[in-house]
Structure formats: C-alpha cells, structure tokens
C-alpha cells in the first residue's frame, strides 16, 4: 500500500427506523433483507415499505407508499423507480439502504438529487469487501477491486487504492503507485 493518507472511510451502523419520520422506505439490492443490516430488536416490518431486487420477478407495480415488499428485476430498475418515487414524495420520509457499498451510495445519490439531506438518509453497507475504484488519471471506474494494488483497465497504470472514498462519485481513489519510480510497485494485499 502507498504511504498512509488520511482515511475518510464511511462508517455504517445497522438500520433502525427514525422515530421522528412520517414514513419510511427501505431498499436493498438483495432478494430479501439481510437481518444483519438491522439493529438489534428491529424487524423489516417496522419500516413499512421495503423494496428488494429479485431476478425474473413478475410482480405488478403497486402504488407508491403502500406498505409491504415490492420486488424489482434489477438494481438499475430499482434506482430508476426510486427517482420517480422520491420526485412524488413529500417531506417527512426517511430512506434506508442496505447492500453492497456501491449500491447504497447510488441510492444516496438518487436521494440527494431529490433534495434529501444527510439526516434523511441512512445507509448500511455489507457483503463482500469489493471497492469501486476510480482511476484519477483516466477516470475509468473499476467496479469490484479486492486488492490494494490493481492495474487500471483504462490506462494500464498500476493504481494504489487509497483509503479515500468520494461520496459524490461513489468511488474509492486509485492513484498510480509507481509514479515516482516506474516499476517500483509494492506487493498487492487483500483489502479488508
């Protein structure tokens, strides 16, 4: 790994319904909500409306805001519908997202675009330690990086994955590790 740089790694807390909210919407990128995403003593029913992703589902669309579980065919389908859903929503909603890190920050991006602020969005990232890495040199996104050093698929640079996460770009920062001394690439380690 390159010389230690300050970390801004996000810290996630298991989800719990915000008692101040008028309504809740919980979204996950899995077919069913993983119980580990919820705080002790909290059940999915407490969130009212839950959106999941399940391949090949044949559920008919239901009115927005109806309580119960609604399934979508893909993450992109869910995110598109979430944008429509939030555009029609009034103040007082809290949005919760559970899933892999790139998914929960995509949800945060949709929510932010709809005008929601930090207090209204709660995220819990879990699952495999995959990092979405952005090459700062050519802006290629490497979707699922597991090691501390990785070759950029766009420009070929050997990138050191820094412990720096952009909440706006939804990506970790990848910077060429051998820029000072070409060829001096440290051994790759598995990312935690």
């Amino acid at each position: 790994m390159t010389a230690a740089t300050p970390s801004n790694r996000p810290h996630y807390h298991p989800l719990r319904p915000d008692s101040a909210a008028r309504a809740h919407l919980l979204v996950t990128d899995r077919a069913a909500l993983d119980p580990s995403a919820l705080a002790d003593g909290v059940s999915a029913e407490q969130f009212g409306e839950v959106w999941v992703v399940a391949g090949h589902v044949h559920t008919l669309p239901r009115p927005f805001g109806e309580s119960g579980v609604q399934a979508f065919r893909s993450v992109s389908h869910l995110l598109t519908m979430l944008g429509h859903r939030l555009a029609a929503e009034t103040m007082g909603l809290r949005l919760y997202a559970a899933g892999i890190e790139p998914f929960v920050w995509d949800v945060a991006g949709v929510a932010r675009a709809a005008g929601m602020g930090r207090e209204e969005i709660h995220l819990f990232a879990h699952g495999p330690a995959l990092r979405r890495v952005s090459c700062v040199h050519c802006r290629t996104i490497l979707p699922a990086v597991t090691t501390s050093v990785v070759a950029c698929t766009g420009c070929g640079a050997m990138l050191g994955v820094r412990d720096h996460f952009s909440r706006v770009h939804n990506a970790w920062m990848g910077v060429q590790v051998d820029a000072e001394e070409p060829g001096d690439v440290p051994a790759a380690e598995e990312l935690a």
Partner: protein
Amino acid sequence: MIIDSQALTLRVAAIDRLSPDLAAVHLVAADGARLPPAAPGAHITLSLPLPVAARPLRNSYTLVAADPETGYRLVIRRAARSRGGSQFIHDRLAPGDLISATMPHNLFALHSQAKKHLLIGGGIGVTPLIAFLARLRATGARFELHQIAAPADLPVFAQLIDPRAGEPVHIHPGRAGFALEALLRAQPLGTHVYCCGPAGLMDAVEATAARLGWPASHVHREDFGAAGGEPFTLRLASDDRTIAVAADQTMLEALEAAGIDAPSLCRGGACGVCLMPVREGQPEHRDHYLGEDERREGRCVMPCVSRSRSPVLVLDI
C-alpha cells in the same frame, strides 16, 4: 467566535411612510463609499442615540435590500411596547442624519441546496422574506410565500411583497385562514421552510414540521425582540453589584445600561457571542444556540433573549 468591531457610519437618505406604523428607511454610507454587500436575510444593528438614555440603544433590523452602490433599506414597524427604538426612528430620525451601525451579519440565510423555499411571515416578519423574494425571483428558484397580516395592513403588505402574476404568493388576513399543517404536509422532498414573525407562529411552524417528520436542518426561524417576561435581579459575582432587569428589558440591555461592556452580535439568540457564565440561579433559556445538555446544566446563559426563572441570577463576571 464571530465578533467584529468594525462599525459603519450611515446617512439617512430617505424615509418613506408606508403606513402610520411602517416606515421604510433608506441608508447610504456617510462618506459615499460602497457599503459591504449582504446576502438576503442579513441584518445590521443600529446604535440609536435616544435622547432620554445615557447610552445609545442597540436594535437589530433585517436588510430588506442591500446593494453596495445604492444602499441598505429597512422596514421598521412602530412597536407599541418598545424601549423607544422604533419610536425614535419613526418620530425623530430625519433624512441627512448620521447613524452608527454594525457590519451586516447573516444568521438567516437561504439554503443553497434546497429544491424549494417555503417562506412564512407574520406581521413585520415580512422583512427578510422581501429580501429572499428578490433573490429567488432573480435566480428562478422554486418558492412559495405565505404572509400573515392584520386585515387593515393587507394593502401595505401587498405593496411590500408586490406579487406578480402567477406567483405562489398568498397574503392571509390573520392566522385563521392559514392552514399550516396542510401546507407543510404538501411540501415536496428537499423543501426548506423559513419563518419570521411572532414567537407563537414560529413555534407552531417548528412544532408542526417536527411532527410531520421534517428534519430540523430544513426548518429555519428568525426572531428578534422576544424580550419580555417577569422582572428579576442580576447579581455580578465579581463585585456583588445588583442590576434590575425590567419586564420589558432584556438581560443584555440591563447589563449595557449598567455600563458593563458585554459583547453581542445578533441580539436574537442565534450567534452565541453574548454567552455569559452563570454561578447561581436558574436561567430560562430562550435562545437557539445552546444544546439540550447545556440548557439543563444551566451553567451559561445568552442574555440577549434569555431570562431567569429564579428571582436572582448570579453571573460569574
């Protein structure tokens, strides 16, 4: 800490009598220079040389317009129960007079990330809304304005707000016809609400928004002059001096009247500049600066708005 000692010397360029109780005061720099710019929602504190008082009275007024070239504009209501500041402006101040003021400060700014701005004003609380409206019209931002006015004042408020065709601007004759809960319930995600007016109206907006699940960061209020209450006595721990705080006087005004050099800025319970340590007694906190824990502990108080529950409050100064 936000303190600055820079003062402005302003000249009264014009005073327009909008109604028997409302006057628009146009101020320019005494030396003809450019004035500091100010974002909508900013206020200045005027030092008013009251003829009866030993020290000038300091009153904060919102800038309804602030242009470095053309000057500042204030709209001031003659307060019936007042320490004389607004009466001085209405009865004594004349074009050409010089007046000392602080630099503009803004504790009630528009939120740049808001998707929609909901403006609610009560009475003279219209002043920051006029400044907001000019900016929102210029930028094309989405807004909605509700102003509550006494029925007799409707024409003058309509003149001040100057609604244009198709704008969602509503001027209500009194609170009765104003459906606050329905209004807040209908607001889209990303709305920020700004309220300026009587404490009762602002408390209702804050409480209703909280009940409907609005996060506190989307609710903004501006209150000047919620001062009155039971009289009490201040004692200074350093020299055992006692200072009486009258029913229509703030603790800060009483300290100033006693010749104590107490720093202050917004004089509305928002900035925290005037914070004072408390040794004994139970403060009645009315500010928006101290946290819940600090209020409970009661070790400090903001003398610009807060008062005392105990008959005597001992300040550690």
